[in-house]
């Protein structure tokens, strides 16, 4: 694909397991993150993605397995001896310190002289558009501003890897989208490897070079957003990344289905099933239909609102339709294959 796929590994987890008492958080995990990647750990809460991040940061020690950073095993090093930095979900800014002191904290810990550290911190604050706020305390900032300070405080140390634990979780939607773009820009400009934890599949798809999908302490699949969406390795991935229809063992994405008049002629490369519209929901850019097929199965259908709509939708509840999709659009999933290896 592009240069990144051949870049050297920077973080490797080999057979890493972690349990809290009898609760297994991770069971023998293998994972490789390459230099310069925007790598996302995606999964529902309790799936092990945050535990994985905390193991890489050093806040937790694995029960078994190795954690390699630049080829060296760091599994038993404390956090302050690892060249990684973390952006915390609650930002974890020091409330008693000014923003400058917060951002300079890591540099000062590495014995940089105060004047130089503060100059660097000012530059880092300017990079996140908070240049004038240096003398304020975190309590005087909005959530979005705190988020940017947390980012500056981590990135000013030029870590080998930046770990981000649901950093946008507390922001409203508009701000989230701004920060997503901002994060991508920062990652691109600095070339720092990002490992990003989120439960938001849209965020994962839009930002990541590669994504690892977690479920119950295991990785279901590692791949590019394209791989996960178009070639999900398991029903879990198909369902968690985007929405999907399961027809037996075949996966069918809702936007690949067209709804035609019941008597329309259909070319042979297509599959066609008659049914009736149960529900039509207008969502702005798209309309979502719930269709009950005559064979008893249910289909979710997404239709882009490309033609100007009059004051009513094209199809209403009760309309008879022919649901049509290219045969190639229905992907067979063999859930026994768990594609954890490299993506070609």
């Amino acid at each position, binding site marked *: 694909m592009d240069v990144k796929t051949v870049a050297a590994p920077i973080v490797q987890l080999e057979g890493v397991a972690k349990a809290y008492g009898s609760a297994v958080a991770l069971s023998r995990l293998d994972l490789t993150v390459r230099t310069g990647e925007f790598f996302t750990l995606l999964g529902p809460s309790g799936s092990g993605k945050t535990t994985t991040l905390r193991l890489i940061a050093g806040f937790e020690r694995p029960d078994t397995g190795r954690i390699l950073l630049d080829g060296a095993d760091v599994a038993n090093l404390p956090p*302050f001896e690892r060249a990684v930095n973390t952006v915390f979900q609650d930002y*974890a800014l*020091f409330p*008693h310190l000014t923003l400058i002191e917060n951002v300079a*904290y890591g540099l000062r810990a590495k014995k940089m002289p105060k004047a130089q550290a503060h100059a660097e911190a000012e530059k880092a604050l300017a990079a996140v558009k908070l240049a004038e706020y240096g003398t304020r305390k975190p309590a005087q900032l909005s959530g979005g501003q705190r988020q940017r300070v947390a980012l500056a*405080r981590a990135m000013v140390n030029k870590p080998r890897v930046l770990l981000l634990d649901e950093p946008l979780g507390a922001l409203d939607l508009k701000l989230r989208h701004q920060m997503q773009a901002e994060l991508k820009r920062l990652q691109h400009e600095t070339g720092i490897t990002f490992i990003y934890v989120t439960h938001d599949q849209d965020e994962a798809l839009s930002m990541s070079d590669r994504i690892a999908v977690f479920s119950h302490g295991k990785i279901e699949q590692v791949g590019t957003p394209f791989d996960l969406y178009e070639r999900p390795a398991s029903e879990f991935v198909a369902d968690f990344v985007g929405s999907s229809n399961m027809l037996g063992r075949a996966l069918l994405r809702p936007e690949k289905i067209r709804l035609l008049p019941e008597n329309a002629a259909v070319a042979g490369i297509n599959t066609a099933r008659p049914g009736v519209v149960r529900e039509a929901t207008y969502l702005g850019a798209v309309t979502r239909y719930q269709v009950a097929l005559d064979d008893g199965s249910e289909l979710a259908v997404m239709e882009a609102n490309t033609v100007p709509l009059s004051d009513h939708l094209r199809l209403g509840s009760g309309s008879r339709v022919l649901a049509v999709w290219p045969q190639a659009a229905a992907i067979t999933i063999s859930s026994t294959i768990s594609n954890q290896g490299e993506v070609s």
Partner: protein
Amino acid sequence: MRSKVIIWTVVAAIFGFLFTPVIIILVYAFSAAPIPAWPLHGFAVHWFADTWNDDEVRAALLLSVEVAVLATVMAILLGTLAALAVVKMRSASREVVSFIAVLPIALPGILTGMALASYFASWGMNLSYWTIVAGHATFCTVIVYNNVVARLRRMPRSLTEASADLGADAFRTFRLVQLPMMGSAIGAGALLAFALSFDEVIVTTFTAGAQNTLPLWIFGAIRLGQKLPEVNVVVFAIIIFTAVPVLLAQRLIGDSGRVAR
């Protein structure tokens, strides 16, 4: 409207019940008569000078202050360290240890006092200045511990993790993050501990040798019916000595509540 009147009447009655005796003592301190009696016979301030010049009272005051300061210093060290250790523990052992840690204040003072006295005796130690300090430190430590633990529990764990993540070892994290954030809680705990030690009677009775702290001196004077005007003056002083630290402590706790958020 009527319910408001009732509420305020009840509040006034409760406060009256609690504070009238205190106010009466404060007023007696200015009575000219050598024996407290109502109504007052004349106004006098000379009891203050007399009390100040009484060597027994002076010695007792000095001892009380010294014991309170030393017990508070011990309490700061032990209470803070205990709090830091307990918040790090996992839930089961934490419950046990924090129960043991607050036990001294839950136990009746007479038990603590007796236990300490017989313990000191069994080691052949004479009751002295230091046995009083040790006795007071038992409950003072709990006060500091409780304040600091409450603060640490409200402090997100991510703060110490962030410090470590940014390259600070445990000592640097303690110095630059935990200590500044605990500071006012330690201060509040210390002030309360000081106030508590300053007017403690029961444990002191069992752990003091020939020495008299101020409360012990009062106790003795009242029992013997001697120097009653001076007692009034001393009580006056004790109220000031204990009320001020308590008020300061409340301010500290209130302030830091805002900071911690």
